[in-house]
């Protein structure tokens, strides 16, 4: 039997009913009855377009949001309804890496401080000297020179900042990481480096990951399984090789067909090619 680190059962989330001065907004289902099972040491790709609920699902998995219904089991513990105090000891084991490292690194703190702040919060730093050693080894882990310890975020390049974001998530030696669109703002040359770094870290540290992306090509590089989300529902879920070679759901096929591969292909722009129905007439964003 495979060892499942994270499992969700009929996980759902709805933004609560809003009552405004002029109108009442019905609760909106953003994530609908999602069943996932992430084996220990594997990477699951969550793919969807804007509004598919992929980010909300990611935030549920790390319990930044509380599910409306359904459950989340982390290492055998039901965390879906856990109160914050009970959740706290688990926080160190579950980390999230955000899309925009620029806004998730404190601009007023030197990198060394940012990297070791989680250790301090969780009471894992005894001495001042420890801090510099730990920060240096974290930088080394993500392929950054130790000399960056005393630098501020604005002194780093985009790729370096994203590496720093990864290093901070790794500070507490988590078992499980949710990475939300972490390569989408990067240049191609930087992106490939970050993807290969994540692959290497996963092999070295035995990390279990959920990798959220709108880009199927990127997912193929890193993930073992893929779940395709549309309007908050998982429409297709399976091993990466199968999804790419034999997509079952029409939406998955549309997504794959829409990716412009860097090959000249006359006819790709022809009107006869399928136009996705949901785009025919957009509603308010």
């Amino acid at each position, binding site marked *: 039997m495979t060892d499942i680190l994270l499992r969700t059962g009929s996980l759902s989330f709805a933004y609560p009913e809003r009552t405004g001065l002029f109108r009442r907004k019905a609760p909106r289902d953003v994530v609908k009855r999602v069943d996932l099972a992430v084996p220990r040491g594997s990477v699951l790709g969550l793919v969807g*377009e*804007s509004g598919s609920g992929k980010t909300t699902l990611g935030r549920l998995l790390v319990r930044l949001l509380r599910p409306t219904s359904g459950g989340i089991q982390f290492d055998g513990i039901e965390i879906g309804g856990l109160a914050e105090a009970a959740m706290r000891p688990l926080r160190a084991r579950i980390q999230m890496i955000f899309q925009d490292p620029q806004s998730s690194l404190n601009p007023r703190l030197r990198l060394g401080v940012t990297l070791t702040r989680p250790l301090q919060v969780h009471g894992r730093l005894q001495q001042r000297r420890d801090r510099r050693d730990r920060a240096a080894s974290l930088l080394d882990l993500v392929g950054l020179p130790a000399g960056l310890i005393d630098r501020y975020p604005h002194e780093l390049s*985009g790729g370096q900042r994203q590496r720093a974001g990864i290093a901070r998530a790794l500070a507490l030696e988590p078992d499980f990481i949710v990475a939300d669109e972490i390569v989408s703002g990067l*240049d*191609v*040359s930087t*992106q*490939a*480096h970050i*993807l*290969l770094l994540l*692959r290497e870290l996963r092999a070295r540290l035995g990390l279990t990951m959920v990798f959220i992306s*709108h*880009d*199927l*090509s*990127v997912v*193929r*590089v*890193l993930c073992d399984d893929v779940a395709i989300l549309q309007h908050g529902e998982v429409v297709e879920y399976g091993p990466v*090789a199968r999804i*790419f070679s034999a997509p079952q759901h029409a939406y998955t096929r*549309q*997504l*794959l067909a*829409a*990716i*412009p*591969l*860097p*090959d*000249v*292909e006359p006819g*790709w*722009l*022809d*009107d006869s*090619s399928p*136009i*996705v129905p*949901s*785009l*025919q*007439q*957009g*509603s*308010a*964003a």
Partner: protein
Amino acid sequence: MTTTLSVQDLHVSIGKGAHSANVLRGVSLELGPGEVRGLVGESGAGKSMLGRAVLGLLPANATIAAGRIAFEGRDLIAMPEPERRRLFGRRIALIPQDPMTSLNPVKRVGAQIAILLRHHLGLSKRDALARAAELLSEVAIRDPRRVLDLYPHEISGGMRQRVLIAMAFACDPSLVIADEPTTALDVTVQRQVLQLVERLRQRHGAAVLFVTHDLGVVAKICRTMTVLHAGRVLEEGETVDVLAKPRHPYTRALLAATPRADRPAEALRPVPPALIDSLWAEAHRLDRLSAMAPS
């Protein structure tokens, strides 16, 4: 036939004196009538700066140090301001990157298109609105009359981008600068937007300079391409040749570093940092040379 756009040995720098930095280091490119050329590069390559230079929209602290930009044989840099103003928006148009911030949030869609038509083509208010509705149906917006009365926040991102495309082609320009127009869009929407740009280009006969970082987008919509790095042209040619047989190591490295949905993970090769370092070293060597040369 005259060349639609001709850029020759264009040098642009930002800042003054000791603090100035070169962003374009002698860029040349040509665009024939109806040609779609991809201008490809990563951040800092100067691709948007080139598009802005052509549009006369360089930031205030930027200087054109040398070079020539000619539109249909006329020198754009030396041209008097009133004459340039008559060209921009009418003969030379822009499809901007960000559909969220490029429309006026407090004006209805119809009014924003109409003001363009009234200003450049001298249409009456009624004619301008009728033409605006036609333009919206050209970009596959159903029920255009209803959309004319909406505010930008009431329509989706993909639809806003289609409105901007309609505006770019509104006055039958002969040159359109498309500055990463699909970067913010989902792939399925991106495909539709690219289809529309191609359809309108054919109908209106415009040449398009398509600024992008995405080699996939270039492959699908551009007949020719120019690869830019550190403000220098590293390679240019027919897209089909450049992608199949890239001559410059940087182009080859970019292709190898682009994840592909049709290939397994093992095929991915990141760009060697030493290559990037040597390209920047070469760019800075050129800077020193031109600083020493008598002006």
